[in-house]
């Protein structure tokens, strides 16, 4: 979609999330209350189909449009699988399928998933929204070929293991489970994981931004020793450092999004995504530490909203590969290529080879 349309959509989505993804809704999900109304309205706005082509009854946006939307969603801690569903729908559509309505999620990163005929076996841990999604989407290697599979939730067994942000994550076991749809996948299993990691970087960028705004606004209003604590240089410098970590998070996520979008769905921005997920995950710790320190006991309560964002940053940095996972991949490639390949690779945003 053109720039103007996208900006309009993002603004509308931002306003909508501010109103409907309220503190109570986010806290409700943590208590096990599925916000059916929120999801219904998200579907009515067409958001889950943002990157599905118009020919397949989608909105016709690009991967970049999808990612920009997820940054806004991250800024509002939207507690439903919007990210997972938009990407699942994109992958299903790109592989010739028709995205179904309802929330979906991604069952990726399971090393032992195998497809025999029409039946899937294997286990995937920490699947986001496993117990509330209608279906699981995954990419598995079948006979050496990447195959996209869709499995109805009720066909698999789900063990609930809520994330530390209180979202209904779970371990999913497929045991000779029938798939409701399978097709030659438009992307490899590794690429599906990359795209999921990229999706998390943009959510992290949004959340990091919100953390900064929250901390800055709080420190301007909180009065101690007879003046707003933002007057103290110690606080000013802490918030400036926080801003630098947030800036790095945003910049890396946006750069990777651009590279992935421009390079194409199959392999665009492969290195940039790994670098961005490493960077975002790496700085999540500092962002949480500085924001909590600046807000004192107040920010450590369940009552305040800060934890909606800092806890998600801690969870999201683990999802779809942590900084250790992606960092190792980068480090191995650069070691293999040798020191002289490093600088040229960096200027091209590519793995050294």
């Amino acid at each position: 979609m053109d720039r103007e349309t996208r900006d309009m959509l993002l603004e509308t989505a931002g306003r909508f999330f501010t109103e409907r993804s309220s503190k109570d809704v986010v806290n409700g999900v943590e208590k096990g209350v599925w916000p059916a109304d929120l999801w219904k309205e998200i579907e009515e706005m067409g958001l889950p189909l943002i990157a599905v082509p118009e020919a397949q009854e989608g909105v016709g946006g690009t991967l970049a449009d999808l990612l920009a939307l997820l940054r806004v969603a991250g800024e509002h801690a939207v507690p439903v699988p919007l990210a997972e569903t938009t990407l699942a729908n994109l992958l299903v559509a790109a592989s010739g399928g028709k995205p179904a309505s309802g929330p979906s999620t991604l069952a990726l990163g399971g090393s032992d998933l195998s497809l025999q005929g029409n039946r899937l076996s294997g286990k995937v841990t920490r699947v986001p929204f496993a117990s509330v999604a209608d279906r699981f989407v995954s990419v598995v290697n079948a006979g050496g070929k990447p195959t996209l599979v869709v499995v109805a939730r009720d066909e698999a067994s789900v063990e609930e293991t809520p994330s530390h942000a209180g979202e209904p994550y779970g371990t999913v076991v497929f045991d000779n489970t029938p798939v409701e749809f399978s097709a030659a996948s438009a992307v490899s299993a590794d690429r599906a994981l990359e795209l999921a990691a990229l999706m998390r970087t943009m959510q992290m960028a949004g959340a990091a931004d919100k953390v900064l705004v929250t901390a800055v606004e709080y420190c301007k209003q909180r009065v101690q020793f007879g003046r707003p604590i933002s007057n103290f240089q110690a606080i000013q410098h802490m918030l400036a450092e926080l801003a630098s970590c947030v800036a790095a998070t945003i910049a890396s996520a946006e750069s990777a999004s651009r590279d992935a979008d421009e390079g194409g769905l199959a392999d665009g921005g492969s290195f940039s995504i790994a670098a961005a997920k490493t960077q975002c995950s790496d700085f999540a710790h500092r962002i949480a530490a500085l924001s909590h320190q600046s807000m004192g006991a107040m920010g450590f309560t369940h009552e305040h909203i800060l934890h909606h964002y800092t806890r998600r940053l801690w969870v999201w940095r683990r999802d779809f590969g942590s900084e250790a996972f992606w960092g190792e991949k980068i480090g191995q490639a650069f070691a293999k290529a040798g020191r002289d390949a490093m600088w040229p690779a960096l200027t091209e945003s590519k793995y050294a080879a």
Partner: protein
Amino acid sequence: MSIPKLEFPPFHLPAEAEALRGEVRAFLKETLPGIQTEDRFASWNTPSPEFSRALGAKGWLGITWPKQYGGAERTFLDRYVVTEELLGNSAPAGSHWVADRQSGPLLLKFGSEQQRQAILPRITRGECYFSIGMSEPDSGSDLASVRTRAEPVPGGFRVNGTKVWTSGAHRNHYCITLVRTSGQHGDRHKGLSQLLVDLKTPGVTIRPIINLAGRHDWNEVTFSDAFIPEDCLIGNEGDGWLQVTSELAFERSGPERFMQNVYVLRELIRVLGRQPAKRASAIVGRLIARLWTLRQMSTAVAGMMQGGQSPAIEASLVKDLGTIYEQDLPEIARTLAESDATTEDDLADFLDIAQYATMMAPSYTIQGGTTQVLRGIVARGLGLR
């Protein structure tokens, strides 16, 4: 939400700049092996007049300046690429660095026609080098408190005072010197001016200040009744603060703020061998990811500047993050090499490299605006002060 959005719009360097990169790389590959320097791994503070002249002969100094002053009238982004290739390939760019980065642009913007014609073509040929005359014994981060006094006398100024941390004054030709030309010490930003000082002027004495690593980069430059002709005043008398602020903007936004010791990362990759352990790979990968991010941020700032914006807060953020990265790098690399270097010889060699880098590291977060000054600028941008 009243705080300004932090945005670093991803920016592609244009095709012409990327084409120039290829030329610069080929030139460096051919030229660097023949150049001897005092440093094992050269950087932007390693002097080599021979190298600067060779670079000037290619037309890559003062690359953005008008042709009438020896420039190439190319874009700021072309300059960005030349700069990062010099750093990425450890070229000894110390002789011309300050002249090309800030002194020349300052003269171009505020200098007289006579000053431009006399100086700029020599800079572009790689023959004329500059020092920065800002800090004094009692004026560091608080630059507006300078005491060096230039008293108007017939035909010029009589200058008395002392400048310190004046890098390269013992080998450079000129020093753009911030002085008080009117008013009193307490007048702060008012009454300051900048003078183009020939470092051979009688009454100007240059003494070394050796840093903790034993290097002679810095000097103390003393003015004792030194006569500076009136045609050496840069811009208008009393505009010194405005001019020096614009000069500092050039000083803070470049890739030298995160690539000064990039050789440490390169050599770390060498000593860890082609198949490092999982943990070692992950640490190297994290260092590379941080460097990549800094480069994305820095090119985004370059793109904003080319587009006519003045991203002062963003530039300060890049320098803050970048210099802290440079400071962390030798320490992370040292501990990793201790556990994971492939041979004893490699380890011993690398520990010497890292040791030197460690000794230089404290300067990174001090020069060109301390971390604390930068954070003050960012805090103001966030509306905190």
